């Protein structure tokens, strides 16, 4: 709370000009309030009661002019409100967006779409509540100022009668503010919990019904309904305190003016002044106090609750880093005794892994779902830091190296032109011809032409998952970096398209390629295959692994002979259900390959290693 207050003060201090303007326009309003009572008093005393009707009318005309001028002030004061509420909204939107992106980038598997509701709803609640607070508080302060100055100018005695109950009412309200805010918060929390219970139940209604768990679900939702009911009743009771504060501050002064009237009249207060005082109380103070007690508590609580949720965190994002292309030193990828686990008591996903990939190698990583293949890709690309050991890319620590590109399964295509999407990873301007060539190379040429060329706008939602992957592949190809990691980046392509894309990357001169395989055909095409099986990892050529690695045989067998021996032998072109595209066999085309060796210990990992992909495999 103090932190929030400090934020708020800084925010206001930076906008002192707006505050000054707001005060200025509000003073016009205060002037109107002042005239409302004062002119009436003078109109009565010097005009109507003195049988000088014209003078009375002059005074009332002055009040009418005051009303007009005051209204201008009221209207203009909203520009001041805008000058505060809009920058607040801008700041919050910026914060939510950068914060949401930062969190998503730090932990891509936890990418949280709740940030969108924060953006569209909570930020708006904050904006409206804040503006409401400013309007209500400002209006009360300046109305009260006008009325109190008016009372003082009519007679100091009047101020003595009116001010104490007003202060008392405000004090009661101020004291109740904190518990009322608590009640309000309880209500908001209950409402959120209820919305979540209903939303989740509705989203999983099929599962609820299939499990026969309607009573469970009903109990869950009803507990939310009951909690909100209770909170609403508590709020209603606090509403009575508000009424009491209003009665003390706004209604009691009228009675007091009546009771003290004989004394006041004896002490030089005129009939007009008395009427003016009553007008101040009933026409100005009472309504202003009423909006204050009704609006302030609710809006204030909503604002603090929402702001507290929104302001959490919010450091600046790092500046985009350029890709340092070219220069290659040593092995393209080197893992030395690398271990990694997802923290806590969780077991290690990668344990003491050694791996050296010379420049130009094409490696395929295979293994069962959730064994940690994406984790490995993240370690090599530096998105994850190993718990122990070292990951070097071109001789540099992976975290620092920008000489690699990672294309994940969920291809990122954004609304923009085809050109913007293709050159996304390039720091320097790229000639259109190079972009076209890149698209052509990975098999996205037809897609780019169909979309309408490089200048065409892309609507990501109108593309199929495979088309998005093609654009992402073209983007990677267009980026002149030595190491490309494809983490199931071709899973939505058909086998032929996948083969074309992988070959394109493998054929880049000096280009090293790591493919987390979605199909076994990817492994057949690779120079080297890394088999991750939880207990240990083995690295070798396809044929060697077929001979030495049981799991690899299983995987190949599963992938290949899906029909599990029930196919009519030889009757068909391919065994039942197998991927109809034959592998390219051993693709060790004369390039140097690390000698076959068993890569040491990779611990059983389960699916934790697989959190990197959003939809699973």
């Amino acid at each position: 709370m103090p932190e929030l207050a400090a934020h708020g003060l800084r925010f206001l201090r930076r906008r002192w000009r707006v505050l000054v303007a707001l005060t200025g326009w509000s003073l016009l309003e205060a002037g109107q309030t002042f005239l409302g009572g004062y002119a009436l008093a003078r109109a009565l005393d010097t005009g109507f009661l003195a049988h000088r009707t014209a003078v009375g009318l002059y005074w009332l005309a002055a009040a009418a002019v005051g009303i007009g001028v005051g209204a201008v002030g009221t209207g203009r004061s909203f520009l001041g409100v805008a000058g505060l509420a809009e920058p607040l909204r801008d700041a919050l939107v910026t914060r939510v967006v950068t914060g949401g992106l930062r969190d998503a980038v730090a932990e891509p598997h936890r990418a949280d779409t709740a940030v969108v509701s924060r953006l569209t709803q909570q930020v708006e609640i904050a904006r409206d509540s804040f503006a409401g607070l400013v309007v209500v508080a400002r209006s009360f302060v300046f109305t009260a100022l006008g009325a109190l100055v008016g009372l003082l100018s009519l007679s100091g005695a009047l101020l003595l009668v009116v001010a104490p109950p007003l202060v008392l009412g405000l004090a009661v309200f101020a004291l109740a503010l904190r518990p009322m805010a608590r009640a309000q918060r309880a209500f908001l929390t209950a409402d959120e919990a209820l919305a979540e219970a209903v939303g989740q139940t509705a989203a999983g209604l099929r599962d609820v019904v299939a499990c026969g768990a309607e009573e469970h679900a009903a109990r869950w939702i009803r507990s939310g309904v009951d909690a909100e009911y209770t909170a609403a009743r508590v709020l209603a009771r606090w509403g009575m305190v508000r009424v009491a504060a209003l009665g003390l501050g706004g209604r009691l002064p009228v009675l007091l003016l009546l009771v003290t009237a004989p004394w006041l009249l004896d002490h030089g207060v005129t009939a007009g002044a008395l009427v003016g005082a009553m007008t101040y109380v009933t026409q100005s103070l009472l309504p202003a106090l009423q909006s204050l007690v009704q609006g302030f508590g609710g809006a204030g609580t909503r604002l603090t609750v929402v702001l507290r949720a929104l302001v959490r965190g919010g450091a600046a994002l790092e500046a985009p880093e350029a890709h340092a292309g070219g220069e290659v030193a040593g092995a393209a990828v080197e893992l030395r005794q690398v271990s990694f686990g997802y923290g806590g008591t969780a077991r290690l996903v990668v344990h003491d892994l050694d791996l050296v990939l010379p420049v130009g190698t094409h490696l395929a990583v295979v293994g069962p779902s959730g064994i940690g293949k994406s984790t490995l890709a993240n370690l090599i690309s530096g998105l994850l830091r190993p718990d122990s050991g070292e990951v070097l890319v071109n001789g540099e620590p992976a975290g620092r190296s920008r000489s690699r590109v990672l294309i994940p399964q969920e291809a990122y295509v954004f609304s923009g032109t085809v050109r913007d999407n293709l050159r996304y990873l390039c720091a320097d301007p790229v000639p259109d011809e190079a972009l076209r060539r890149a698209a052509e190379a990975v098999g996205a040429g037809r897609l780019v032409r169909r979309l309408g060329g490089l200048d065409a706008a892309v609507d990501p939602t109108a593309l199929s998952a495979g088309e998005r992957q093609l654009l992402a592949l073209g983007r990677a190809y267009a980026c002149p970096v030595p190491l490309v990691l494809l983490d199931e980046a071709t899973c939505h392509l058909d086998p032929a398209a996948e083969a074309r894309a992988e070959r394109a990357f493998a054929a880049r001169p000096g280009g090293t390629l790591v493919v987390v395989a979605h199909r076994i055909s990817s492994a057949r095409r690779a120079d080297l295959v890394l088999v991750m099986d939880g207990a240990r990892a083995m690295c070798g050529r396809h044929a060697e692994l077929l001979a030495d690695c049981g799991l690899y045989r299983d995987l190949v067998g599963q992938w290949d002979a899906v029909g599990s021996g029930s196919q009519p032998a030889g009757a068909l072109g391919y065994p039942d259900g197998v991927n109809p595209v034959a592998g390219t066999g051993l693709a060790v085309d004369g390039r140097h390959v690390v000698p076959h060796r068993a890569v040491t210990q990779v611990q059983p990992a389960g699916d934790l290693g697989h959190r990197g992909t959003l939809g699973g495999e």
Partner: protein
Amino acid sequence: MRTEDRLLLAALRHSARRTVFLCLTSAAGSAAALLLPTALGHTLDLLLRHRAAPHLMLLCAALVGASVALDAAQTLLSGTTDAKTTAWLRDRLLHRILGVGPYAAARFTPGDLAARCTGNAATAGTAATATASLVTTLITPVGALVALTLIDPWLAAVFLAGGPVLVLLLRTFARASSDCVSRYQRAQAAIASRLVEALGGARTIAAAGTAGREAARVLEPLPELSREGHRMWRIQGRATAQAAVLVPLLQTAVLAVGGIRLATGHLSVGELLAAARYAALATGVGAFVSRLAALVNARAAAARATEVLALPTMLYGDRKPPFGEGQLELRGVTVVRGGQPVLEGLDLRVPGGSTVAVVGRSGAGKSVLAAVAGRLTDPDAGEVLLDGVPVPLIDRAELRREVGHAFERPVLFGTTIEDAIAYGVDAPTPQRCRAAARAARADGFVSLLPDAYRTERARAPLSGGETQRLGLARAFAHCGRLLILDDATSSLDSVTELQISQALAHDVPARTRLLIAHRASTAARADLVAWLEGGRVRALAPHHELWRLADYRAVFEGVADA
């Protein structure tokens, strides 16, 4: 009478006593508010003539006290009445949502249903109090106008002449603002959709180190948003200023005429004071309009609730299926979705104790068949029998006990992982949950979580494959005689799938299984394959027999093999 009005009437009846009491308090409050200015005026007149007025003074005090007390009572009553009506409405909504079955409820998105249960229900819940306060907001201005007339008809005439001008001016601003609001919302939506895109590409952005650039791209429409926002405030400022002019000006006009009448001796000072107050109260007609708008809102919200309440509930019988192996029979089943028949007169008999795989091109109605077979939805024609008993006759709990479902994208419930597996009609023992998790190959990754099975789900984000395995474990932990797997292993690799199917054969009690399969390997392991085409079963035979047919093989083409 419209259905939403019937709902509102029912809501009023539900809190009838409170509503009547609320009406009475409000009416009494209005009466006090109307009497007070006259009493004040008379007292003031006596005091100005230096005469004691103890009785009148007491009356004033009593009226002020009554106003405060009635106001307090009204606040409490409307708060609690709203709360009670809202809770009642929500209860009805939740029963209906849970009772209609998932397919009928799918007309509404989950977010929409949540909105109808929270915001809409709360708005509809104010109907009772809105009606009650409508009465008072009408009494007060009318009464004030009458009082004004009684004090001096001239004053009432001035007020009535100025009133129409007031209304005309008030109406000018409403139109200009809506256009501005929609432009504002468009800019906001543009930012939101850019952000959603970027979040979807989080891993690419992380790897490329382009988060800063992305933030700038997402925030591009912000200046537009700000511009429209400022415009909205300007419009609102103008509207507020207009409203701020009208009431005081009208009052001043009444005071001016009153002053003239005072100077000519037709009016006392106290009467003038009362007249000013009555003029203010009479402009409370605006409050009447806003209460009316509130009632209209409540009615619109009730209409949205009614749409949910109008969905037909799924009725269950009270029969227990006879002892059996779980034989499933579909007879002439037709299901129509969006005007198109998905299943058309489909006949299928799944022998008790056998495993039948359902295959077919996407869109062939495989999932619909699974839903009909397990009575997640009822067919538009035809019937489904479990061990000879039509499923609608079977008691709900019995049916769910006997038939288990696992899905491609299961939604899990419960606080912990263990709760999620145990979720169902009866709570299985922790041992059974663990055995089910082992059979579903979920044990491995669950044991990696900080508190294993006791880990709160909120603290353990799960991948699609992990969620799928927990969904399987949930089905394994509960199911009786029939197990329906609707593509429930699609996110798993072939090895894991094979392990699960082996465990399924040995460790899961369900005797009869219906599998929706995309992979040839799954189909190959089943006793029989039901090949779905054109809304019917084209063939029911073992996989290896069907494999001879090119059409059948074509079904699996393009299916990723891992």
